[in-house]
């Protein structure tokens, strides 16, 4: 008999995991995966697929898991999505595929599509099946002799590069940092996305024939004009890397980090490890400002480095932009939410170190342009919070390096690169996808854009 309730993924207990950097979600066992797969009704019209930005044939791969045909499941998944080990971990399934599952409301909850995706992808990684895919994605030959430069090595670039390589195009991927993976290596913490998984995915993309050049900053080390000379097309997947700050007094005190800096030190530079060369301050009481996924990542990282963590957010819990899962995880681990509070000033001691934050209480007023009720300060309600470290997680904007080095590339007021829906920019042969085009969004949307651009590049070759 099929159990009707959704199988949640086993996870490390909150009390234990808040002291380590190991992955929180432990993955399905074969039994759990099979039982969960059996919950899928295999709807003919597949509403779930409409919610997937890359159109994975969800009922098809789940049907293979159901009958125990793991190779079959891997084949379908790999064909539709070459980064499924990552998507299965970090996609906001509840607002995508799982949102449209017919079981969602009255049939024990949506099928755990993300969990099943992760299970199949991990099976592929563990059994050397990373490149197993349906014949149609191996059309090498047709585009032989073509070459494309891919700038950046985050989700958009990885998916674009692998789709192109699978079509027989020679791809060179240029990365500004010393390691490939973009936000997957510098941003998302180990406990949500182990770097060994990212490394395997990157290695797999390289095994398709993609050359990786690290330490190359586009707009400084090389220029797009040069790349166009050497390649038939250029794809820009440089993300949105510039952190926003609060613009309040005390923001440059010692102990104030952007979430980007904090997470980069911990994730990319491994500052969480004993004996790490790159230093990080270990605050006793850390205040994180913001309530998106990055804020949750920063807060949970600070907890693991031994701090007491408060998260200051100017709206209420209902408006927090982070995934529900991340909010719950943070809460379970002991992050305290100071809601309806807005920082007014960061206070420092005589040595320029953070010693506190002055905040003002807020209340919710009329809905603003985003549809959320806008926060309004309550006059005279300011008070001080004691803290010795502040992490600002208020979002990021696209990096201006490329824009500044290529004036002919049309950009918007927000600094994003203007393109059609397939990623074609104002410059012939130059394509874009991911956060560089849309502004900060999700891994899966970036991947989808990378795939679209790869398709457009191939079409334009024809």
């Amino acid at each position, binding site marked *: 008999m099929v159990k009707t309730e959704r199988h949640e993924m086993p996870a490390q207990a909150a009390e234990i995991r808040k002291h380590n950097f190991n992955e929180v979600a432990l993955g399905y066992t074969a039994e759990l995966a099979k039982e969960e797969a059996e919950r899928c009704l295999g709807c003919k019209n597949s509403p779930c697929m409409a919610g997937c930005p890359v159109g994975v044939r969800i009922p098809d791969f789940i049907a293979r898991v159901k009958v125990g045909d793991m190779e079959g499941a891997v084949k379908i998944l790999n064909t539709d999505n070459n980064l499924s080990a990552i998507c299965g971990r970090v996609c906001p399934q509840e607002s995508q595929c799982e949102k449209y599952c017919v079981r969602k409301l009255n049939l024990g909850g949506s099928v755990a599509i993300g969990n099943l995706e992760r299970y199949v992808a991990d099976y592929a990684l563990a059994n050397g099946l990373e490149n197993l895919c349906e014949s149609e994605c191996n059309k090498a030959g047709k585009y032989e002799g073509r070459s494309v430069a891919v700038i950046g090595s985050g989700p958009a670039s990885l998916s674009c590069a692998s789709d192109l390589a699978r079509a027989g195009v020679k791809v060179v991927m240029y990365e500004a940092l010393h390691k490939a993976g973009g936000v997957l290596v510098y941003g998302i913490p180990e406990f949500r996305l182990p770097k060994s998984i990212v490394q395997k995915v990157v290695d797999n993309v390289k095994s398709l024939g993609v050359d990786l050049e690290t330490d190359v900053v586009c707009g400084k080390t090389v220029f797009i004009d040069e790349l166009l000379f050497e390649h038939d097309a250029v794809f820009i997947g440089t993300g949105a890397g510039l952190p926003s700050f609060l613009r309040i007094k005390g923001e440059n005190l010692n102990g104030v980090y952007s979430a980007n800096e904090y997470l980069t030190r911990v994730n990319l*530079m491994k500052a969480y490890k004993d004996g790490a*060369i790159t230093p990080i*301050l270990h605050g006793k009481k850390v205040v994180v400002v913001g309530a998106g996924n990055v804020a949750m990542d920063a807060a949970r990282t600070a907890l693991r480095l031994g701090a007491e963590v408060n998260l200051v957010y100017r709206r209420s819990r209902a408006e927090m932009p982070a995934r529900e899962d991340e909010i719950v995880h943070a809460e379970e681990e002991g992050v305290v939410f100071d809601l309806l509070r807005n920082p007014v000033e960061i206070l420092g001691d005589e040595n320029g170190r953070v010693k506190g934050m002055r905040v003002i209480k807020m209340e919710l007023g009329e809905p603003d342009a985003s549809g959320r009720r806008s926060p309004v300060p309550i006059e005279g309600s300011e008070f001080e919070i004691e803290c010795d470290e502040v992490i600002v997680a208020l979002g990021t904007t696209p*990096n201006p390096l490329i824009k500044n080095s290529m004036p002919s590339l049309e950009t918007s007021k927000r600094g994003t690169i203007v393109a059609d829906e397939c990623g074609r920019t104002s410059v012939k042969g130059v394509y874009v996808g991911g956060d560089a085009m849309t502004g900060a969004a999700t891994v899966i949307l970036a991947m989808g854009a990378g795939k679209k651009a790869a398709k457009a590049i191939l079409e334009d070759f024809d």
Partner: protein
Amino acid sequence: MKKYEILKKRALASNVNEYVIYAPLVAKHCLAGQFVILIVEPDGERVPFTICDYSREDGTVSILVQEVGYTTAKLAMLKVGDALEDFVGPLGNPTDLKEFDSVVLVGGGIGSAVVYPQAKQLKADGKKVDVIVGARNESLLMYVDEFERNSDNLYLITDDGSNGRKGFVTDMLKSLVESGKKYDCVFAVGPLPMMKAVCNLTRELGVKTIVSMNSMMVDGTGMCGCCRLTVGGRTKYACIDGPEFDGHEVDFDEAILRSKIYKAQEQEHLCNLRGNYGKN
């Protein structure tokens, strides 16, 4: 040649080495005033250094490094033929002194490395250029011959008077201006307190002053904000807005405090390194 191989290494002063690194991609576009970020060993930290010379033909970039912390000490242990783990650049914006006709370059300690390519450039452009080089003592003076060849007047000054006049670069600058020298720009690079002192002086003298900020960095591409500083009341990033700024607008007191963020950790690392080094 290996990627990022050390082709030459020469001691310029006590604890200061010049390294010539094989990095053709960096050498291809780099200009005076820009910097690189390097990593010495796997999982090492990312540290910025100003480019002090380059050869596009040979594909080489030169940097000057003073042993002050863990990474610079590790670097000092490397020999010709060894390779760095990573070497990325050129980063930051090049210097632009074109609009000035009479420039005095002021280099303090290791800062002389940064002003040297400017001297070369200004000379090549046929401009009038004076150079003041200061150091704690004679053993820390560097590039004296090179400056001799690439300046109209070279003025040496040491804290202890062991070479040149005794005093600070500000003393030299002040007496030059008082003696009637006219400069339309002071380009000063050195330790933060020195640049601060120069700016305080030139503010009084009313001479435009440009400084190069050597802030701590992680990525060097605007991604982390570690290198931020206040210039004219606004937050700027040394990596993408600089590294050069109008010295009269820079909040040096804040920059000095920020330069000490990791003092304690840095000291601990260095002690560990020295301890391990002694045992080997």
